């Protein structure tokens, strides 16, 4: 039967080994050679966009990279989706929503009117463009192959 000493050794040994492996994998997956996020494309405008994203807690309603609050649409590849739906007008639509003085209310669900400047709205676009270029290992808003075929046709 397992003794208390052996149980402690299992806990301490297991923890140490998995932590070391975890740190090793972290270093490996964040190394330059494994980069999937096109980090060389992170311009000053993208960084400003990220800052605006955080300062307004956009993640408190929307999701990005699948992370957020599920109250408002996923914004990864949002420009592509709006371009497809509105004949290439994606960027203009996003800018008008962000710069609007009046709250945007799609289907009655309210969004705060952020009244952004043109520069701020462009920084947000730059941020979304960079996000849209990240290799997400196959994740998309629409996942099923059948639905994808339906949309593209």
């Amino acid at each position, binding site marked *: 039967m397992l003794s208390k000493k052996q149980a402690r050794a299992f*806990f301490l040994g297991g923890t140490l080994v998995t932590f070391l492996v975890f740190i090793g994998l972290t270093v490996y997956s964040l190394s330059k050679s494994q980069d999937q996020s096109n980090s060389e494309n992170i311009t000053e405008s993208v960084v400003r966009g990220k800052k605006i994203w955080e300062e307004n807690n956009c993640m408190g309603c929307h999701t990005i990279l699948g992370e957020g609050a599920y109250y408002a649409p996923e914004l990864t590849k949002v420009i592509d989706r709006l371009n497809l739906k509105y004949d290439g007008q994606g960027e203009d639509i996003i800018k008008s929503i962000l710069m609007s003085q009046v709250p945007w209310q799609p289907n009655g669900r309210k969004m705060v009117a952020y009244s952004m400047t043109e520069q701020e709205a462009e920084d947000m676009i730059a941020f979304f463009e960079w996000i849209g270029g990240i290799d997400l290992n196959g994740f998309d808003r629409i996942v099923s192959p059948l639905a994808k075929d339906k949309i593209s046709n």
Partner: protein
Amino acid sequence: MKYKSQKVAYWFFALSMLLLVLQITYGFIMGFARVGFDNLHEIIPFNTARAVHTNLLVVWLLSGFMGAAYYIIPEEAQRELVSVKWAYVQLISLAVVGVVAIVGYHFNYWEGRKFLEIPRPLDFLVVANVLLFLGLILTTLFKGKRKTTTALVLSMGLLFAALLYLPGMLPFDSQVTDSFFRWWVVHLWVEGVWELIMGGILSFLLIKLTGVDREVIEKWLYVIVGLTFLSGVLGTGHHYYYIGVNKIWLIVGGIFSALEPLAFLAMALFAVNMYRKGEKKHPNKLALYWTLGAAIVSFVGAGLLGFAHTLPQTNLYTHGTLVTAMHGHLAFWGAYGMIVLAIISYALPNLTGRKLYQSTRGRAAFWLSNIGMIGMTVAFGVAGVAQVYLERKFGMDFMQVQGEIGIHFVVLILCAIIFTTGIVLYIIDFYKHGKPNDEALEQAID
């Protein structure tokens, strides 16, 4: 209660209950917004309510954990706390930082990083507060007459929780790296070191309530926390599948997070077995309800419901949907909410000398809150699965889908009312116990 200084725990528990009520209030604001009653939008938009709801969860649980430590450590170390005065300073500063953060969220003073919305300047105050807490607890422990495994595991959990807060404070320009290290805090807290805290409290309660030999309970405690880290650390990978990092996490995260339910299963089996094995008939049945309840519900909420969407093939569909909210609610409730309510139920009669553990109100609080939370979980689950089918499989537009699943939020609100009734009854019981006092010292039932 064996030591006068344990009384400080009462005030941490009281703060914890106050914050829980506020958390539920903001939950209702979000629930009503989802069914179209967004009348508070001008002052409390959804993103504010959401940040307040999740941050209050973290703070009421932390306050409960701290109260638990102030109650358990003196008893385990067999000595008074090294300083009661500084413990009260820590309590007040925790409340002040919490209130400033929550009020700030209403004025766009936040960071907009899910679960870690507290702005950096306040982060440093959080760190100072936690250092003071750890200083008091660890000094008491090391000056004590004995250093039990229960006390060591609990303290280790609290110490690691503090250390793991730091990666979340690192600034990154890349959303991907930012998210990567945010999970070091959030995941390694809730699926790692917080389980040590839960294990420590559970072990203390089982020793007291069942009368099973400490050596046996603590041996299994090591096995459980061993399983937790063995699966949970590399299980962090399940947050890395689709955020823009290497595919290796699909394999590592998939395998190890699939093993995570084992730790919770072990915890549930352990608690039930110790209860069966124990010959002690402790009169505080309510504390026993909450203790066994925590072990069992955490297995269902954190273990089974976590497993339901942790494999990469499933998560590809459920990532970023309400399925996560389904798992999140029952997991937090079972693993952490219930264990805090368990230690409060055990400690209150001993702190105040009023033994209300036969009350019907107390039992109703247990059943109503659990039935309500299970109902809420089902409502989130149905909404989440419908969202996955309509949006991810049939390609419907997000807002259209939200219209289709609106009815499930009506059910959610109804179940939340049942849950809240349970919590209100629990808090009435808390209030009826009265204040902690020194006379309770002689009357405590071990």
